[in-house]
């Protein structure tokens, strides 16, 4: 079936409108970051770089940024190791309960984030664990595992096993085959999984609000609390723009490197 010219132009216009809808809020927010006025009235009366300096000089923002970086890096590292190990097990061995394991790994993102959040918080409180950066990392690592897992599984599915067998035939032991053959084949998939996990962790708030406790702020939590204070909004705009960049750039890079992330399961 060939769509008629009329149908094609309607579809083209509809697609353009949806893309416009997806990007309009991001563009407006980016413009607000340069707003000369303290007020959020549209359109901004003029443009300035003033608020970037003010954001950079704000110690609360700097602390929150460091916390976010630390949490995202550590959670990504944990998720990458766990996800890769699980992917190797599920993709390279046949065993009873294989489907259950892949289902269990997806569960933390299939159920609403508020459930993950309240479940972790209740558990930490019940066990008497103090909330802070460590509990944030535990939560982030839990829902990031599936991202690394998905990327590595997709790559393993495509990788041929012949080089591994050849390596074993040539006398390489299990470690050497893994180090010299399997790992290099997985490298870009792991990198793109890590970038996506980092982006996911860096801007997470639904679970983080439950696991952060009163004393610890990440960038999203700082924005969430500062939104309530009108005098802080010019700086919030700048931080929001930076947060957007920090989460978009890794995703873009992951797309370029991995190309395995066509799947939706985040």
């Amino acid at each position, binding site marked *: 079936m060939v769509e008629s010219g009329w149908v094609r132009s309607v579809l083209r216009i509809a*697609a353009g409108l949806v893309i416009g809808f997806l990007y309009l809020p991001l563009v407006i927010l980016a413009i607000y970051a340069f707003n000369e006025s303290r007020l959020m009235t*549209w359109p901004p009366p003029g443009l300035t770089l003033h608020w970037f300096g003010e954001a950079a000089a704000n110690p609360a923002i700097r602390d929150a940024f460091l916390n976010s970086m630390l949490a995202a890096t550590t959670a990504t590292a944990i998720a990458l190791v766990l996800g890769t190990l699980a992917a190797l097990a599920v993709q390279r061995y046949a065993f009873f309960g294989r489907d259950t394991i892949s289902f269990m790994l997806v569960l933390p993102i299939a159920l609403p*984030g508020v459930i993950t959040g309240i*479940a972790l918080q209740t558990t930490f409180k019940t066990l008497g664990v103090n909330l802070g950066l460590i509990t944030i990392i535990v939560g982030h690592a839990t829902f990031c595992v599936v991202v690394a897992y998905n990327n590595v599984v997709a790559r393993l599915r495509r990788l041929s096993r012949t080089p591994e067998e050849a390596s074993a035939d040539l006398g390489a032991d299990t470690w050497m085959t893994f180090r010299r053959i399997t790992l290099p084949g997985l490298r870009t998939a792991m990198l793109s999984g890590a970038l996506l996990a980092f982006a996911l962790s860096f801007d997470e708030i639904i679970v983080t609000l439950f696991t952060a406790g009163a004393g610890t702020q990440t960038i999203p939590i700082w924005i969430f609390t500062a939104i309530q204070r009108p005098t802080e909004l010019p700086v919030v705009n700048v931080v929001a723009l930076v947060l957007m960049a920090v989460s978009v750039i890794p995703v873009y890079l992951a797309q370029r490197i991995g190309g395995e992330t066509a799947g939706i399961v985040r």
Partner: protein
Amino acid sequence: MTANDAGSATPPMAAGRGRRVARWLHARPRAQLRLLLLSPLAWIAIVYLGSLVVLLLNAFWAKDAFTGKVDPFHWTLKAFEEIIGNPVYRTIALRTVGIAVLVTLTDALLAFPIAYYMARVASPRKRGALIVAVLLPLWAAYLVKTYAWRTILQGNGFLAWVLSPLGIAGPGLDKLPNAWLVLSYLWLPYMIVPIYAGLERIPNSLLEASSDLGARAGTTFRRVILPLVVPSLVAGSIFTFSLSLGDYIVPDLVANAKFIGNVIYDNSALGNFPVAAAYSMLPIVVMVAYLLVARRLGAFESL
């Protein structure tokens, strides 16, 4: 590259032991499997499933009347009685599920044309660009997008400016339809991607066969294309529905309304874990039921 080669520089002792372990493992695939699975399984089972169990238990635990703290292993149904006895909790549950359904329908309607364009009309180059254009907002900065909508919807924001020539005032930040609009916006890419993938999988020969047999374009669409993308549609709806069902930031920031997530969050902030836990059972049960129906409709193969 260099990191991988560095392994050969390990001291002979360690290498010797490594070799022996490797040789032992080589003949034992079961042991390899156990080693691989040990840490990821332990993490998910203990951290995630373990906390779900603790959450479930908390729903049946009493609160100490004096200290206000949860009294573990002191069983009671008080939390459930409180939820069932208070009509506000019912209203909030219905409001949340209603908005989640509306968001899902809206996203299906908005996603279909662009997904169809990407899969069957756009040139390969344009298609690649569109996929990236849809995936970037999917992954990026949930809170920033919500905040951006707050600036658009507020009394003197962008929308008020667009509407002012028509003599219509801006919506302000206390209207329930705002939550519908912003949630539809946030989860739209989650619907576009699976529908696109589903449409792309339909072989051209099927559509040619349909038209050879005399079906006009409209008939082919209704009788061939639509039934084949239903699983993908359901797959996308799992995300739009589940994510809307659990959201508590959007209703708070753009609609000044309470959703299921707000009840859970507010109660946990007050230390009232049994009520928060008992109310969490609602989205869990709804989602499990939804997932079971979705599986019957073949959505899991389209995820």
